[in-house]
């Protein structure tokens, strides 16, 4: 993620760390910062955008999970945190994030792409002083990068502070991964999909845009009527049922993800293709590989390739297929069996749902039939009452008294 600029930032150290931190950033942190920036700017609020990030710490593993804005104060000409305010605020957040327990892990602010600035030094010193830990990181949001985001690059950098031997504070850039919890991902996905922007609400019936959650609005309507309306709507505009919409949305997301996977694989392939021949497997090449080769990358490609077959255990139970194969795997693997069972369960629920509907429809038909038949008998009775006893020649024997008894 490092942006190499022409003039190096004197506050940045490129010295390799003794141990590497593993940092996982949650999207909520990024969106909270974004929300804060939008509010702060539109409301023309005073002062810089500064906030805190809480997360878990487990040895050298950190998560950045929630963020909040901070009240600032001035001290000896420096902008620092309002001590009292901050102490109370952090307790308030710890009170409601107990399992897992979250604590302060980083501060955030906006800064140029060059990295930490001089003003950040006294600020970070105060934070270290307040928390009596040196491990608080600094997350910088680079507004100028927002309009040139490519290939999933985020407009942020993360820094750890380093105490140099000369007593000065320097910053070392950290790499991080984006991590989402299950509910978080659904939430992020949900807001990402809807096209709703934040234009002001107009007077009267400004119907919120298409992303509104589909609530069944049919209150106390007759079932039949409701269905007719639905059918009319479907016919007129080709509207899909909410279930179908959902299905399509989930398939679309999958399609996009597969496209992305494909892109990544192609990227890897083109990288591998432009590498020189291996001198290990090809004895004719005598030149050792250039230093630029990324061995870590190659090793992880190798290990991924060796794991691919595990994804598809030999499911071969097909008689024709097995006869030509020599692995003798006549029995489907347990994973395949489990998968098959799962499949059957799903179909079973589908069948049961269809059956339930059929029963309901049949019952409906029965009730309607009953009404019609009743009416008809009533008519016939009144008709026959003039001409004597009826013959009971209604088709299907619906006059069978026992039905109405």
């Amino acid at each position, binding site marked *: 993620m490092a942006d190499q600029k022409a003039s190096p930032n004197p506050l940045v150290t490129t010295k390799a760390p003794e141990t590497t931190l593993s940092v996982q950033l949650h999207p*909520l942190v*990024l969106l909270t910062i*974004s929300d804060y*920036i939008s*509010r702060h700017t*539109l409301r023309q609020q005073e002062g*810089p*955008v500064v906030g805190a990030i809480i997360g878990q710490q487990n040895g050298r593993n950190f998560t950045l999970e929630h963020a909040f*804005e901070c*009240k600032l104060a001035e001290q000896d000409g420096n902008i620092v945190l309002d001590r009292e305010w901050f102490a*109370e605020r952090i307790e*308030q957040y710890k009170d*409601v994030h107990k399992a897992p327990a979250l604590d302060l892990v980083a501060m955030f602010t906006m800064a*140029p792409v060059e990295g930490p600035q001089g003003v950040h030094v006294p600020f970070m010193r105060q934070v270290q002083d307040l928390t009596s830990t040196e491990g608080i990181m600094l997350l910088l949001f*680079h507004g100028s990068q927002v309009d040139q*985001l490519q*290939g999933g690059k*985020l407009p942020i950098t993360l820094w750890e502070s380093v105490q140099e031997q000369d007593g000065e504070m320097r910053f070392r850039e950290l790499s991080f991964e984006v991590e989402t919890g*299950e*509910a978080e991902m*659904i*939430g*992020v*996905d*949900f*807001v*990402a999909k809807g096209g709703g922007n*934040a234009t*002001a*609400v*107009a007077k*009267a019936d400004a119907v919120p845009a298409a992303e509104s*959650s589909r*609530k069944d609005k*049919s*209150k106390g309507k007759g079932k039949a009527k409701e*269905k007719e309306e639905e059918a009319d709507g479907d*016919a007129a505009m080709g509207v899909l*049922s909410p279930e179908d919409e*959902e*299905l399509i949305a*989930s398939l679309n*997301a999958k399609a*996009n993800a597969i496209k992305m996977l494909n892109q990544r694989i192609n990227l890897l392939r083109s990288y591998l293709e432009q590498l020189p021949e291996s001198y290990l497997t090809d004895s004719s090449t005598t030149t050792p590989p250039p230093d630029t080769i990324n061995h870590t990358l190659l090793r992880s490609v190798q290990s991924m390739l060796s794991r*691919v*077959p595990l994804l598809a255990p030999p*499911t*071969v139970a*097909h008689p024709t297929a097995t006869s030509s194969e020599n692995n003798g795997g006549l029995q*489907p693997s347990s994973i*395949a069996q489990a998968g*098959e069972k*799962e499949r059957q369960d799903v179909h079973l629920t*589908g069948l049961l*749902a269809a059956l339930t509907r059929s029963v*309901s429809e049949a*019952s409906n038909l029965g*009730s309607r039939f*009953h009404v019609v038949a009743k009416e008809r008998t009533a008519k016939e009775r009144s008709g026959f009452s003039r001409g004597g006893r009826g013959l009971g020649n209604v088709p299907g024997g619906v006059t069978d008294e026992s*039905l109405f008894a």
Partner: protein
Amino acid sequence: MDTQKAWEIENAVKLVDPTRDALYNYNREEQKKITDARPWRANPNHFKYVRISAVALIKMTMHARSGGDLEIMGLMLGYVEHETFIVTDALRLPVEGTETRVNAQSEADEYMVQYLDRSRQAGQLENAVGWYHSHPGYGCWLSGIDVGTQHTQQMFSDPFLAVVIDPHRTISAGKVEIGAFRTYPDGYKPPDSGSSAEGMAAVPMAKAADFGAHANRYYSLEVSHFKSTLDSKLLEALWNKYWVQTISSSPLFTNREYVTHQIEDVAAKTREVDGGVRMRGGAMGGFAPRAGPKGRKSGDEQVGKVVKAAEKIANEERMGLLAAMVKEKVFAAGVAPASGNGSATAVPVGGGSAGGDTQMSDVKA
């Protein structure tokens, strides 16, 4: 002021669009005027819409999920504009198991007051415009206790809104299951005194009585969400990071327990409906109920609910299976081309569309 400038080298003005991001603004005087005029006093149905910011929605969803089977509770900050609540942020309250305790909210009062005080000091001027809580696995509606809480809030701190999130259903449906509600004043009878229940087919047996008893005392508002221009750009970049999870998730596996519960519930409801039919149909049973039209209608309604609940399960399961199939096709297809499941993979599509067909023909019948 030099330090001030040094902090603000990075200018944020370009990042917002005053028109598209207007909801992120806040006008204290305007809000005061609205609160003084109280247009909602004149019309019990005054508020019709809720717009929730991206952060508020994600915070509430995550909070609800973090509680697991326990109900959690929090507050929403924001303001009102015409007939709409604008929710800009959400905060957690340190209480759990709210559904069973009438005074759960008052326990959090002190926390709430201090939190909001600190927020204001940091420049977040919005007032509390509502509370949210979770209904793990039993759908979005207001229970008797909820109606009481909301009713009190509307009397003393209106404009106020109640939001309910079902974290379990959120996970199983893959989208945020959320509802927003306001109660009617005492003695007010909604025009269509029918149940606001109709759409809520999936309230479990154990909660059905509670649901039915209070369904006429509140109404639901239409929920939508909003995000800023900057959010949109970041979300796009973020998707490039979390797309892996889109393929790798296994909803069939993760939701197994939840689905089993749902099936149990449908089974219990089916038994109940069956009992009802037998009672009404007498010894002859079957489809010629002897009861008057009223009894039959409620019977049909109940059957309808069972059908809806069953189809909901089937649909969610089908989506789960599709996810598994996609994964299998992508990762296993090349490795084991002639697998014995060749036929099986064809079935789900057929089965799926068959389910769809029945639905379609029903609708058109």
